[in-house]
């Protein structure tokens, strides 16, 4: 007869196997492990303290809802910010998930619409700039998250980047030896002129763990992927790392966490160098090395372009 696996802590039936911890856990002790990993990250890198006014970048996906949920559970004060990217149905549905979560826990969610406030959306920006959608999207989100945090007096901007995200970006940057990007790939970027403190409390949890957190907690996140992500390099890097992880559990964690501990300190000088060079954007006042910042240049080009439906952009990428 089949004997189901047992929780490492309490010997009750397990609900999840975590090969990198070489153990199985019941629901209660799995949640406990997630809280511990997040607390450890916060303490280890001094990410947050309880006085921080936190703004969480919320997409409606598993990571951003999990990090918001975890921070509230751990006793932090945190509001959410959702940016409407105008990516067809995906954006409509993701907004519903973000709002429903906020409502269910009585949390404050700020919303910004790219189309409504800046006159463009991501599919149009991709066509207008002839770059991959994620490039215009990442630029827009970074700018608007930073700006909202600064303008509204938040002391920390939190994102839901998990271990898989960070390990995949690290792999990409390492394959090209992008030293300046590597120097910035840290769980904490301190505040500096015009930029809020930026924090990634989930980097000690894998994607499978953040998704499992949501399932166990009954968080109804948007499971479907952004249609723009199909076939992008980031996903290939994740698949590559997961193939390594399957052979040798714990590889992703040691790749990223040892980078932060052993390699990042050697690159700290590069981070200091690029700090000196910034002025302010002539149009919006954001920090930039040019006269007009990349976001304002994007707005100019994208808002002048005729509207492009999401299908036109995704079809070209399949």
């Amino acid at each position, binding site marked *: 007869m089949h004997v189901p*696996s047992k929780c490492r802590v309490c010997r009750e039936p397990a609900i999840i196997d975590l090969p990198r911890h070489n153990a199985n856990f019941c629901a209660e002790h799995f949640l406990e492990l997630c809280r511990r990993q997040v607390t450890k990250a916060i303490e280890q890198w001094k990410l947050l303290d309880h006085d921080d006014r936190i703004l969480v970048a919320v997409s409606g996906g598993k990571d951003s809802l999990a990090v918001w949920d975890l921070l509230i559970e751990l006793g932090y004060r945190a509001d959410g910010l959702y940016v409407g990217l105008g990516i067809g149905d995906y954006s409509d549905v993701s907004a519903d998930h973000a709002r429903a979560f906020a409502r269910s826990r009585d949390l404050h969610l700020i919303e910004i619409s790219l189309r409504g406030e800046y006159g463009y959306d991501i599919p149009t920006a991709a066509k207008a700039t002839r770059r991959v959608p994620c*490039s215009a999207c*990442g630029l827009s989100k970074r700018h608007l998250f930073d700006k909202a945090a600064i303008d509204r007096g938040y002391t920390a901007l939190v994102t839901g980047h998990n271990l898989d995200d960070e390990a995949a970006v690290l792999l990409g940057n390492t394959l090209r030896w992008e030293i300046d990007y590597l120097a910035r790939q840290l769980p904490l970027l301190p505040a500096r002129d015009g930029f809020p403190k930026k924090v990634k409390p989930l980097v000690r949890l894998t994607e*499978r763990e953040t998704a499992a957190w949501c399932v166990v907690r009954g968080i109804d996140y948007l499971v479907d992927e952004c249609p723009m992500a199909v076939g992008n390099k980031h996903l290939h890097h994740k698949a590559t790392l997961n193939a390594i992880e399957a052979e040798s559990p714990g590889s992703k964690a040691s790749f990223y966490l040892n980078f932060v501990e052993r390699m990042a300190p050697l690159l700290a000088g590069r981070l200091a160098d690029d700090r000196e060079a910034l002025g302010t954007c002539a149009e919006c006042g954001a920090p930039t090395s040019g006269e007009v910042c990349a976001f304002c240049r994007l707005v100019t080009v994208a808002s002048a372009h005729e509207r492009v439906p999401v299908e036109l952009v995704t079809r070209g990428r399949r």
Partner: protein
Amino acid sequence: MQVHLRNPTRVIEVSGRRKVHALLVELGLNRESHLVIRNGTLVPGDGELDADDVIEIRPVISGGA
């Protein structure tokens, strides 16, 4: 058992009992990038799936910057 999959969304029929691990291997899915859910509850790798179960295999990998 009835297995619900995504990307693309589809339902397949698998006959007989299986361990979660065995099913993932059979379908060519990496266990590091999927969760198996039955009646809203996670099932661990060595959990046994019955012939009349309805299960969801949920990918957990998100793309993008």
